[in-house]
């Protein structure tokens, strides 16, 4: 079964009348997704559909489940043309991200096809689009720390996104204040040194974390992964050259560096 955003492009009047603020927390992809729809909110059916979509993405793209489409593709049991359109789309995004980042965003970071670096951000972006199509004008979809924001948190009040301090549990290193943006963070705080610098063939370790702010989460998430693999000098210079993206880097010493426009979005807490 293939769920797509287009199925929800025409919210009915009855759905709109049933709309209400919604808050959901869902385990998926080995992490936790948090969904927070404000204002008049959104049709609960659309929220359920967005949750189903995330689980479908997990089943399809998982590199842990041997029967997933991506696992079978990786083993050569399926051709790209035999995969769902969504798989071809993600592989296209992976290719674009790899080219745009001089290979630092890798198609096969661990020696086998693994689009995991882009799938979660892309899935969240799409889930957010599904809610918009269902009439939501104000929501956050947070996939394990990668965030797509739509509209404002309240009338005249932009969303406030805390950036977790990678070296101090439960503390924030910055607060991004913005509407209609995406925020993604790559780092070693939760899962260790899992991002590989494909040019050295070794784990990237010159940064504690890098946080990227930009319009859409799939690209923002992939950019954060690429910038993390590049390290602070090259990573920040590269983000500086990407239209619409800004970044905050936290070094292993706790020192912070950021692109010139980052402070237009965010205040550092120190």
């Amino acid at each position: 079964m293939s769920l797509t955003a287009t199925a929800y492009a025409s919210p009915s009047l009855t759905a709109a009348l049933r709309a209400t603020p919604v808050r959901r927390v869902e385990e998926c992809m080995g992490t936790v997704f948090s969904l927070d729809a404000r204002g008049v909110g959104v049709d609960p059916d659309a929220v359920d559909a967005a949750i189903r979509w995330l689980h479908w993405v997990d089943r399809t793209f998982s590199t842990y489940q041997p029967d997933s489409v991506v696992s079978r593709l990786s083993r050569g049991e399926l051709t790209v043309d035999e995969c769902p359109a969504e798989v071809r789309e993600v592989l296209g995004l992976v290719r674009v991200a790899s080219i745009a980042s001089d290979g630092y965003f890798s198609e096969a970071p661990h020696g086998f096809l693994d689009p995991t670096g882009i799938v979660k951000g892309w899935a969240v972006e799409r889930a957010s689009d599904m809610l918009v199509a269902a009439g939501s004008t104000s929501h956050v979809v947070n996939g394990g720390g990668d965030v797509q924001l739509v509209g404002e948190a309240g009338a005249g009040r932009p969303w406030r996104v805390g950036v977790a301090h990678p070296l101090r549990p439960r503390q924030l290193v910055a607060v991004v204040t913005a509407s209609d943006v995406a925020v993604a963070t790559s780092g070693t705080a939760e899962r260790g040194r899992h991002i590989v610098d494909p040019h050295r063939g070794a784990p990237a370790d010159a940064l504690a974390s890098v946080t990227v702010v930009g319009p859409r989460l799939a690209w923002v998430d992939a950019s954060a992964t690429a910038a993390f693999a590049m390290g602070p000098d090259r990573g920040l210079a590269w983000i500086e050259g990407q239209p619409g993206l800004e970044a905050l880097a936290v070094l292993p010493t706790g020192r912070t560096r950021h692109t010139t426009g980052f402070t237009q979005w965010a205040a550092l807490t120190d």
Partner: protein
Amino acid sequence: MRRFLYALLGTVAGLGGLIGLKANLAPAETPAQAAEQPPAAEVEQPPADAGAPAGEAKTATGDKATNQYESFQVKVTVSGKQITKVEIAGLTTKDAKSKQVTGDALPKLQKATLDAQSADVDTVSGATYTTKSYQESLQSALDQAGL
């Protein structure tokens, strides 16, 4: 409101681990129990309904947490939706050293809790947490407060 208080106490109970951790710097190595206490709470004053005036301060006290070096309860004062004060109630320590160590840890506990509150954020971006580490995260505290 009641559920909100419980969520906050869960957060504070987690932070209470700081104290146990500090105390473990003392000679023996016994796992601190402070962080393992369930965040069951006794709400001293009945929590107000959503429509109640926001400025009214309420106090809630967590269950007594005991480890080898001290026993204490975490007491939080909530005004509207903000924690305005974090205190340790009924602190008893085994000896002078434990008292000093616990005393050093207290400001950290208070600062961590108030930092998270005063930041007043809607959501948190960070390195992808596991299902398990989510339970200890600020995002989890925000979700619990909002659910």
